[in-house]
């Protein structure tokens, strides 16, 4: 496979995952502003911060305002990190790697682009927002479904999956990075409404409210939430889950290609941090430090994968 094609697949699925995660995040913010309006502004700030777009937003709009954040994240043409820009980038990458995709996968991406481009051509009225956010997630789910249902399990599939889980772990880590302090033992005020709102945001932004409730009989508990999102391999958006998948797919590549470039050791060492630990040990070490180190390691891993598999010259 061409190095360029591997890179195109990796980024195509990163962008799809990113647009889906942004939509989840907006959904979580929207829910909070509808149910607990007093907390809304600070939560919108958390959301825009976790996407890494706070500076860009402030340059454009100044003060954080729910409606403006939503428009900025969804479609503002001046924002290269918007959902619309991500879908467009996913589709451009799909065109670039078209020969590696089944017709079903290409058409699923292309149709998603056509639908969302027209749905996001103008600011979205409030009443249409919930449906639109759902559409974004449905479209990316269809792409993922056609990938799983129609693609041969080979290196093409591996790069697509690595991109997906790489981006997903990154998103989960970013929301934790912004919100880590509300999970710390020192500031626990169990049951206080402020904290509940923030835990709610974390779980909603990762679509794991229901999963949490299914797996934990207890009330929301910050220690359990942290454990859930960091270490629980049953949750498809936890860091441990995502990295076990990246390890698997890099492992298939190793088998297939018969070589083991540097990124394999890097991913193993990141994954090891989730294996021989517990949430209490992470708290002892420092949750913020843990997440900061994770994000740095993940960034370096991304660069190494790109180098090892010759994505570009």
């Amino acid at each position: 496979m061409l190095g360029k094609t591997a890179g195109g697949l990796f980024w195509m699925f990163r962008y799809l995952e990113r647009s889906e995660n942004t939509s989840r995040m907006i959904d979580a913010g929207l829910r909070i502003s509808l149910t607990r309006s007093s907390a809304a502004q600070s939560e919108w700030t958390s959301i825009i911060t976790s996407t890494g777009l706070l500076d860009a937003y402030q340059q454009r709009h100044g003060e954080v305002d729910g409606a403006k954040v939503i428009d900025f994240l969804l479609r503002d043409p001046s924002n290269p990190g918007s959902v619309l820009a991500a879908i467009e980038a996913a589709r451009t990458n799909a065109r670039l790697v078209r020969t590696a995709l089944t017709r079903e996968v290409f058409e699923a991406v292309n149709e998603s682009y056509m639908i969302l481009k027209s749905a996001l051509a103008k600011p979205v009225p409030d009443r249409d927002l919930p449906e639109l956010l759902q559409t974004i997630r449905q479209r990316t789910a269809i792409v993922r479904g056609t990938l799983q249902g129609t693609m041969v399990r080979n290196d093409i599939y591996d790069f697509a999956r690595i991109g997906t889980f790489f981006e997903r772990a990154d998103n989960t880590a970013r929301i934790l990075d912004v919100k880590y302090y509300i999970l710390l033992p020192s500031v626990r005020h169990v049951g206080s409404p402020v904290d509940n709102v923030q835990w709610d945001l974390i779980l909603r932004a990762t679509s794991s409210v229901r999963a949490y409730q299914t797996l934990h009989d207890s009330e929301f508990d910050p220690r359990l939430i942290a454990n859930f999102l960091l270490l629980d391999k049953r949750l498809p958006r936890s860091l441990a889950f995502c990295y076990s998948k990246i390890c698997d797919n890099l492992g298939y590549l190793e088998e297939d290609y018969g070589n083991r470039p540097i990124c394999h050791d890097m991913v193993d060492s990141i994954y090891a941090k989730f294996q021989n630990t517990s949430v209490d040990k992470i708290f002892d070490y420092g949750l913020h430090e843990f997440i900061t180190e994770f994000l740095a390691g993940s960034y370096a891993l991304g660069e190494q994968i790109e180098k090892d598999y010759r994505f570009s010259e």
Partner: protein
Amino acid sequence: MSGESHFDEMYGRDGKTRGPYSEYCGWLSDEDVSRLRKKSVEAETLFRRTGITFNVYGMEEAAERLIPFDIVPRIISGREWSRLSKGIEQRVRAINAFLHDIYHGQEIIKAGRLPAEMIAQNDAFLPKMIGVTPPGGVYTHIVGTDLVRTGEDDFFVLEDNARTPSGVSYMLENRETMLHMFPELFSKVKVQNVSNYPRMLRRSLGRSVPDACDGGPTIAVLTPGIHNSAYYEHAFLADQMNVELVEGHDLRVVDGRVAMRTTRGFKPIDVLYRRVDDDFLDPLNFNPESQLGVPGIMDVYRAGGITIANAPGTGISDDKAIYSYMPDIVEFYTGEQAILKNVPTWRCSEPDALKYVLDNLADLVVKEVHGSGGYGMLVGPAASKKEIADFSKKLEANAANYIAQPTLSLSTVPILAKSELAPRHVDLRPFVLVSPDKIDITPGGLTRVALKKGSLVVNSSQGGGTKDTWVLEE
């Protein structure tokens, strides 16, 4: 429809359904226009979803457009086709012999059949190709011979596209779309199959391997990139042939071979089906500004390290000034009269011809010698007085840059217009594959249709559309 001066392929000149269309018209008479319109919209949705679009240069807003597809097929009888394909094969054979001669002994010039300056002063002539024999002796692996029709038995060759002819993906997708929308029609009318073109292309390219090739040939398609107007086609062909689609920056010369950067290192390519013009192919040997090519590929080529399809320098044979000599060229190399006619052509470089052309601009079509895509041409009968006056100034200033032809009364085939069938002018581009031992021509080709009433310009960049082309089984 009768009373008009042109020949309609469905209804002839007298309004009676012609033989090849009889079964189709029988089916059509039971259809109503509103169902056909619905089908037509359905077809457009299919094309859009599949991403069969083309980019229009210089139009930011309409960056991606569909080529309009008309659902009424153009039908050619098996007998008509076998005569056409003989003529095309003869012509393509002659072109390959001509190219070999021009880059070697130039016997045709020595024999006085072609003026030396037609070659020496021609931008499409590539001195770097002198004395080079491409692998298998094939210059034009892929040719798209543009044909027009003016009557029952009157076909003319309009252009020999011997560089990088495009449109074959539309031929294939048009057929897939028709099969999808009108399955019942294909059980009624026996149409020759086109769908094995990609397999034949792959096989044909694989027969022209370079000396350096060992083992199964590695083939790749070279595209200028996703912003090129024909990118869809490049991706489509690579996909259908199951070969890599590469850009210049994926390639590099490694150990005397052109190799592509894969996830596992550099892999040599044996046959490169390039959809990049000569000038951009090699910044070391040609245009130094080019980002689209591979530095040093010409040196590898000359040393027998790679096959480039089509060979560099083939443009000399589809040049519009050379075109006027094609009947001589066919006769010189095959020893036979040309089966397919040329359109009478005035070379404006010749003073007598120029005078005639200037005096008769309103009746002529004038084209740039190196132009393509319908740009920079004058269609006299459709032009205003001012356009003609402006054009004659351009013509006088640079006469050698132009040729002129009579305005042919092109045949029509009906399209589905708003509420009825209406005749529109068409041309035909059959696709020809040349390998060292044989020439394959896919039955039919791409029918292009001028969608505007009375218009003769069929180019997709100028608002033309396409039709599925049926060659009936004999």
